[in-house]
Protein backbone atom coordinates (compact mmCIF):
# COMPACT_ATOMS: atom_id res chain seq x y z
CA UNK A 1 0.00 0.00 0.00
CA UNK A 2 1.37 3.41 -0.97
CA UNK A 3 2.01 6.12 1.60
CA UNK A 4 -0.88 8.07 0.09
CA UNK A 5 -3.27 5.11 0.47
CA UNK A 6 -2.10 4.50 4.02
CA UNK A 7 -2.75 8.10 4.86
CA UNK A 8 -6.23 7.96 3.28
CA UNK A 9 -7.07 4.83 5.30
CA UNK A 10 -5.87 6.42 8.54
CA UNK A 11 -7.91 9.50 7.82
CA UNK A 12 -11.03 7.42 7.09
CA UNK A 13 -10.66 5.64 10.41
CA UNK A 14 -10.17 8.90 12.22
CA UNK A 15 -13.32 10.31 10.60
CA UNK A 16 -15.32 7.31 11.81
CA UNK A 17 -13.94 7.77 15.29
CA UNK A 18 -14.69 11.52 15.19
CA UNK A 19 -18.29 10.83 14.20
CA UNK A 20 -18.66 8.18 16.86
CA UNK A 21 -17.39 10.48 19.62
CA UNK A 22 -18.68 13.87 18.48
CA UNK A 23 -21.53 12.95 16.07
CA UNK A 24 -21.57 14.40 12.52
CA UNK A 25 -22.18 18.19 12.63
CA UNK A 26 -25.12 17.93 10.22
CA UNK A 27 -26.97 15.78 12.74
CA UNK A 28 -26.87 18.34 15.52
CA UNK A 29 -29.89 20.42 16.50
CA UNK A 30 -30.13 23.95 15.06
CA UNK A 31 -29.53 25.59 18.44
CA UNK A 32 -26.41 23.67 19.25
CA UNK A 33 -24.98 24.01 15.76
CA UNK A 34 -25.54 27.78 15.84
CA UNK A 35 -24.01 28.04 19.30
CA UNK A 36 -20.89 26.10 18.31
CA UNK A 37 -20.52 28.18 15.18
CA UNK A 38 -20.68 31.38 17.24
CA UNK A 39 -18.03 30.00 19.52
CA UNK A 40 -15.74 29.10 16.62
CA UNK A 41 -16.28 32.25 14.58
CA UNK A 42 -17.75 34.93 16.85
CA UNK A 43 -17.22 37.65 14.26
CA UNK A 44 -18.93 35.86 11.42
CA UNK A 45 -22.62 36.03 10.61
CA UNK A 46 -23.11 32.89 8.50
CA UNK A 47 -25.90 34.61 6.61
CA UNK A 48 -23.63 37.48 5.59
CA UNK A 49 -20.89 35.09 4.61
CA UNK A 50 -23.25 33.10 2.41
CA UNK A 51 -24.73 36.24 0.92
CA UNK A 52 -21.27 37.49 -0.07
CA UNK A 53 -20.16 34.10 -1.42
CA UNK A 54 -23.32 33.60 -3.48
CA UNK A 55 -23.26 37.18 -4.80
CA UNK A 56 -19.67 36.65 -5.89
CA UNK A 57 -20.60 33.37 -7.58
CA UNK A 58 -23.60 35.01 -9.30
CA UNK A 59 -21.35 37.75 -10.61
CA UNK A 60 -18.89 35.26 -12.06
CA UNK A 61 -21.71 33.51 -13.95
CA UNK A 62 -22.98 36.83 -15.29
CA UNK A 63 -19.53 37.92 -16.38
CA UNK A 64 -19.26 34.75 -18.41
CA UNK A 65 -22.61 35.55 -19.96
CA UNK A 66 -24.21 32.54 -18.27
CA UNK A 67 -27.51 32.35 -16.44
CA UNK A 68 -27.19 32.35 -12.66
CA UNK A 69 -28.03 28.74 -11.65
CA UNK A 70 -30.95 27.89 -9.39
CA UNK A 71 -28.82 26.92 -6.40
CA UNK A 72 -27.01 30.27 -6.42
CA UNK A 73 -30.29 32.15 -6.84
CA UNK A 74 -31.76 30.15 -3.97
CA UNK A 75 -28.80 30.98 -1.73
CA UNK A 76 -29.08 34.67 -2.63
CA UNK A 77 -32.81 34.66 -1.99
CA UNK A 78 -32.45 32.88 1.35
CA UNK A 79 -29.78 35.26 2.59
CA UNK A 80 -31.48 38.46 1.46
CA UNK A 81 -31.06 41.05 4.25
CA UNK A 82 -34.29 41.14 6.22
CA UNK A 83 -33.50 43.98 8.61
CA UNK A 84 -34.12 46.61 5.93
CA UNK A 85 -37.66 46.78 4.63
CA UNK A 86 -37.80 46.61 0.84
CA UNK A 87 -38.86 49.95 -0.62
CA UNK A 88 -42.41 50.15 -1.92
CA UNK A 89 -43.68 52.59 -4.53
CA UNK A 90 -46.09 54.11 -2.01
CA UNK A 91 -43.31 54.53 0.52
CA UNK A 92 -41.03 56.19 -1.99
CA UNK A 93 -43.78 58.60 -3.13
CA UNK A 94 -44.41 59.55 0.49
CA UNK A 95 -40.68 60.21 0.92
CA UNK A 96 -40.59 62.38 -2.21
CA UNK A 97 -43.66 64.31 -1.02
CA UNK A 98 -42.12 64.94 2.37
CA UNK A 99 -38.87 66.12 0.78
CA UNK A 100 -40.75 68.48 -1.55
CA UNK A 101 -42.86 69.87 1.27
CA UNK A 102 -39.83 70.38 3.51
CA UNK A 103 -38.33 72.76 0.99
CA UNK A 104 -35.18 70.73 0.27
CA UNK A 105 -33.66 72.26 -2.86
CA UNK A 106 -33.57 69.92 -5.88
CA UNK A 107 -30.29 68.21 -6.61
CA UNK A 108 -28.14 69.91 -9.16
CA UNK A 109 -26.93 67.12 -11.35
CA UNK A 110 -23.63 67.72 -13.03
CA UNK A 111 -23.14 66.44 -16.55
CA UNK A 112 -21.14 63.19 -16.56
CA UNK A 113 -17.50 63.52 -17.55
CA UNK A 114 -16.88 62.85 -21.21
CA UNK A 115 -15.17 59.53 -20.47
CA UNK A 116 -18.30 58.19 -18.73
CA UNK A 117 -20.79 59.16 -21.40
CA UNK A 118 -22.16 56.37 -23.47
CA UNK A 119 -20.90 56.30 -26.99
CA UNK A 120 -24.10 56.50 -29.02
CA UNK A 121 -22.82 54.51 -31.97
CA UNK A 122 -21.41 51.63 -29.93
CA UNK A 123 -23.42 48.41 -30.28
CA UNK A 124 -24.02 46.17 -27.28
CA UNK A 125 -22.13 42.91 -27.45
CA UNK A 126 -23.79 39.55 -26.75
CA UNK A 127 -21.95 39.45 -23.41
CA UNK A 128 -23.30 42.91 -22.49
CA UNK A 129 -26.80 41.81 -23.41
CA UNK A 130 -26.48 38.64 -21.29
CA UNK A 131 -25.27 40.67 -18.30
CA UNK A 132 -28.09 43.21 -18.72
CA UNK A 133 -30.62 40.43 -19.12
CA UNK A 134 -29.36 38.79 -15.92
CA UNK A 135 -29.60 42.06 -14.01
CA UNK A 136 -33.05 42.74 -15.44
CA UNK A 137 -34.26 39.30 -14.33
CA UNK A 138 -32.91 39.90 -10.85
CA UNK A 139 -34.64 43.29 -10.61
CA UNK A 140 -37.88 41.77 -11.91
CA UNK A 141 -37.71 38.95 -9.37
CA UNK A 142 -36.97 41.44 -6.60
CA UNK A 143 -39.93 43.60 -7.70
CA UNK A 144 -42.22 40.58 -7.86
CA UNK A 145 -41.25 39.51 -4.35
CA UNK A 146 -41.74 43.06 -3.05
CA UNK A 147 -45.18 43.21 -4.61
CA UNK A 148 -46.04 39.80 -3.15
CA UNK A 149 -44.84 40.92 0.27
CA UNK A 150 -46.85 44.17 -0.02
CA UNK A 151 -50.02 42.32 -0.93
Amino acid at each position, binding site marked *: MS*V*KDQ*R*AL*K*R*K*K*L*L*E*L*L*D*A*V*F*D*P*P*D*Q*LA*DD*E*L*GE*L*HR*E*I*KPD*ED*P*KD*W*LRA*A*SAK*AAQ*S*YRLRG*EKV*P*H*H*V*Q*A*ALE*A*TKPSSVEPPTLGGMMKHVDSLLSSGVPPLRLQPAPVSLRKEPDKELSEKDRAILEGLWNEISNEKRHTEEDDS
Partner: protein
Amino acid sequence: MKTSPKRYENVDWLRVREALVLRALQLSRACDRVVDGATFEDLADQVMTEFLLHPDGMDWDPKKGPLEMFLRKTLDHRWVDGWRRHSKNEQAPVEQPVNPQAELEHDQFFEMIKRALEDQGDLLEVIEAVEILDGDYNIVNQEVAKLIGTTVKEVENRKKRLRRALTGLRI
Protein backbone atom coordinates in the same frame (compact mmCIF):
# COMPACT_ATOMS: atom_id res chain seq x y z
CA MET B 1 -28.20 17.11 -14.58
CA LYS B 2 -31.27 19.38 -14.73
CA THR B 3 -31.97 21.32 -11.59
CA SER B 4 -35.01 23.30 -10.59
CA PRO B 5 -35.67 26.02 -7.99
CA LYS B 6 -37.87 23.52 -6.14
CA ARG B 7 -34.84 21.39 -5.34
CA TYR B 8 -33.48 24.12 -3.05
CA GLU B 9 -36.77 25.12 -1.41
CA ASN B 10 -36.08 23.34 1.87
CA VAL B 11 -32.38 23.98 2.14
CA ASP B 12 -31.33 25.49 5.44
CA TRP B 13 -28.39 27.53 4.19
CA LEU B 14 -27.23 28.63 7.62
CA ARG B 15 -26.98 25.03 8.77
CA VAL B 16 -24.93 24.26 5.68
CA ARG B 17 -22.37 26.93 6.51
CA GLU B 18 -22.34 26.14 10.22
CA ALA B 19 -21.89 22.40 9.71
CA LEU B 20 -19.00 22.94 7.29
CA VAL B 21 -17.19 25.31 9.64
CA LEU B 22 -17.65 22.94 12.58
CA ARG B 23 -16.43 19.90 10.66
CA ALA B 24 -13.42 21.75 9.29
CA LEU B 25 -12.53 22.85 12.82
CA GLN B 26 -12.87 19.29 14.15
CA LEU B 27 -10.52 18.08 11.43
CA SER B 28 -8.02 20.80 12.20
CA ARG B 29 -8.05 19.74 15.85
CA ALA B 30 -7.60 16.12 14.81
CA CYS B 31 -4.66 16.82 12.59
CA ASP B 32 -2.68 19.99 12.80
CA ARG B 33 -1.87 19.80 9.13
CA VAL B 34 -5.45 19.09 8.20
CA VAL B 35 -5.39 21.18 5.08
CA ASP B 36 -1.73 21.04 4.20
CA GLY B 37 -0.77 24.33 5.65
CA ALA B 38 -4.02 26.21 5.06
CA THR B 39 -6.52 27.09 7.77
CA PHE B 40 -9.70 25.20 8.60
CA GLU B 41 -11.66 28.19 7.32
CA ASP B 42 -10.05 27.71 3.91
CA LEU B 43 -11.35 24.16 3.76
CA ALA B 44 -14.91 25.13 4.73
CA ASP B 45 -14.91 28.09 2.34
CA GLN B 46 -13.49 26.05 -0.52
CA VAL B 47 -16.22 23.40 -0.39
CA MET B 48 -19.04 25.95 -0.30
CA THR B 49 -17.49 27.99 -3.10
CA GLU B 50 -16.99 24.85 -5.17
CA PHE B 51 -20.69 24.05 -4.76
CA LEU B 52 -21.77 27.57 -5.77
CA LEU B 53 -19.48 27.65 -8.78
CA HIS B 54 -20.61 24.26 -10.03
CA PRO B 55 -23.30 24.95 -12.64
CA ASP B 56 -25.40 22.00 -11.42
CA GLY B 57 -24.68 22.44 -7.72
CA MET B 58 -22.43 19.34 -7.66
CA ASP B 59 -25.46 17.29 -8.74
CA TRP B 60 -26.83 17.30 -5.22
CA ASP B 61 -30.23 15.73 -4.98
CA PRO B 62 -32.41 16.06 -1.84
CA LYS B 63 -32.92 12.31 -2.08
CA LYS B 64 -29.26 11.97 -1.08
CA GLY B 65 -30.03 13.71 2.22
CA PRO B 66 -29.86 17.32 3.35
CA LEU B 67 -27.39 19.62 1.61
CA GLU B 68 -25.41 20.12 4.83
CA MET B 69 -24.81 16.38 5.01
CA PHE B 70 -23.89 16.13 1.34
CA LEU B 71 -21.36 18.97 1.57
CA ARG B 72 -19.99 17.79 4.91
CA LYS B 73 -19.31 14.42 3.31
CA THR B 74 -17.71 16.20 0.36
CA LEU B 75 -15.47 18.05 2.81
CA ASP B 76 -14.60 14.74 4.49
CA HIS B 77 -13.70 13.19 1.14
CA ARG B 78 -11.53 16.16 0.22
CA TRP B 79 -9.72 15.75 3.51
CA VAL B 80 -9.31 11.97 3.21
CA ASP B 81 -7.95 12.29 -0.31
CA GLY B 82 -5.56 15.02 0.73
CA TRP B 83 -6.87 18.48 0.29
CA ARG B 84 -5.06 20.71 -2.14
CA ARG B 85 -5.37 24.42 -2.21
CA HIS B 86 -6.54 25.64 -5.61
CA SER B 87 -5.34 28.77 -7.24
CA LYS B 88 -7.77 31.66 -7.31
CA ASN B 89 -8.82 31.07 -10.90
CA GLU B 90 -9.57 27.39 -10.23
CA GLN B 91 -6.83 26.11 -12.48
CA ALA B 92 -4.28 23.42 -11.75
CA PRO B 93 -4.11 22.38 -8.10
CA VAL B 94 -1.02 23.42 -6.18
CA GLU B 95 0.77 20.32 -4.92
CA GLN B 96 1.78 20.44 -1.29
CA PRO B 97 4.52 18.22 0.10
CA VAL B 98 3.34 15.42 2.37
CA ASN B 99 4.85 15.66 5.81
CA PRO B 100 5.10 12.14 7.33
CA GLN B 101 5.58 13.70 10.75
CA ALA B 102 2.10 15.25 10.46
CA GLU B 103 0.54 11.80 10.10
CA LEU B 104 1.63 10.91 13.60
CA GLU B 105 -0.67 13.57 14.88
CA HIS B 106 -3.76 11.57 13.84
CA ASP B 107 -2.94 8.77 16.21
CA GLN B 108 -2.20 11.17 18.99
CA PHE B 109 -5.46 13.05 18.65
CA PHE B 110 -7.47 11.07 21.16
CA GLU B 111 -4.52 10.81 23.49
CA MET B 112 -4.37 14.59 23.42
CA ILE B 113 -8.08 14.92 24.16
CA LYS B 114 -7.84 12.43 26.99
CA ARG B 115 -4.97 14.35 28.55
CA ALA B 116 -6.96 17.55 28.31
CA LEU B 117 -10.00 15.94 29.91
CA GLU B 118 -8.23 14.03 32.65
CA ASP B 119 -10.20 15.86 35.35
CA GLN B 120 -13.52 15.05 33.65
CA GLY B 121 -13.81 11.32 34.12
CA ASP B 122 -17.34 11.06 32.76
CA LEU B 123 -16.27 12.47 29.39
CA LEU B 124 -13.21 10.24 29.27
CA GLU B 125 -15.48 7.25 29.81
CA VAL B 126 -17.34 8.04 26.58
CA ILE B 127 -14.15 8.23 24.53
CA GLU B 128 -12.80 5.02 26.01
CA ALA B 129 -16.08 3.22 25.41
CA VAL B 130 -16.06 4.31 21.76
CA GLU B 131 -12.52 3.04 21.43
CA ILE B 132 -13.60 -0.33 22.83
CA LEU B 133 -16.30 -0.55 20.15
CA ASP B 134 -13.45 -0.47 17.63
CA GLY B 135 -15.29 0.49 14.48
CA ASP B 136 -18.68 -1.01 15.33
CA TYR B 137 -20.51 2.29 15.38
CA ASN B 138 -23.99 1.45 14.10
CA ILE B 139 -25.84 2.22 17.30
CA VAL B 140 -23.00 3.91 19.04
CA ASN B 141 -24.91 5.76 21.77
CA GLN B 142 -26.78 2.66 22.88
CA GLU B 143 -23.59 0.62 22.89
CA VAL B 144 -21.67 3.26 24.82
CA ALA B 145 -24.51 3.57 27.34
CA LYS B 146 -24.45 -0.19 27.85
CA LEU B 147 -20.67 -0.26 28.26
CA ILE B 148 -20.51 2.47 30.88
CA GLY B 149 -23.77 1.54 32.56
CA THR B 150 -25.80 4.66 31.97
CA THR B 151 -28.69 5.91 29.83
CA VAL B 152 -28.58 6.93 26.18
CA LYS B 153 -29.76 10.40 27.21
CA GLU B 154 -26.79 10.74 29.54
CA VAL B 155 -24.42 9.68 26.74
CA GLU B 156 -25.97 12.32 24.49
CA ASN B 157 -25.45 14.97 27.17
CA ARG B 158 -21.83 14.00 27.66
CA LYS B 159 -21.25 14.10 23.91
CA LYS B 160 -22.66 17.60 23.85
CA ARG B 161 -20.09 18.62 26.46
CA LEU B 162 -17.38 16.88 24.46
CA ARG B 163 -18.31 18.90 21.39
CA ARG B 164 -18.12 22.11 23.36
CA ALA B 165 -14.79 21.05 24.81
CA LEU B 166 -13.39 20.45 21.34
CA THR B 167 -14.68 23.60 19.70
CA GLY B 168 -14.38 25.88 22.69
CA LEU B 169 -10.63 25.34 22.87
CA ARG B 170 -10.89 24.13 26.41
CA ILE B 171 -8.54 21.30 25.55
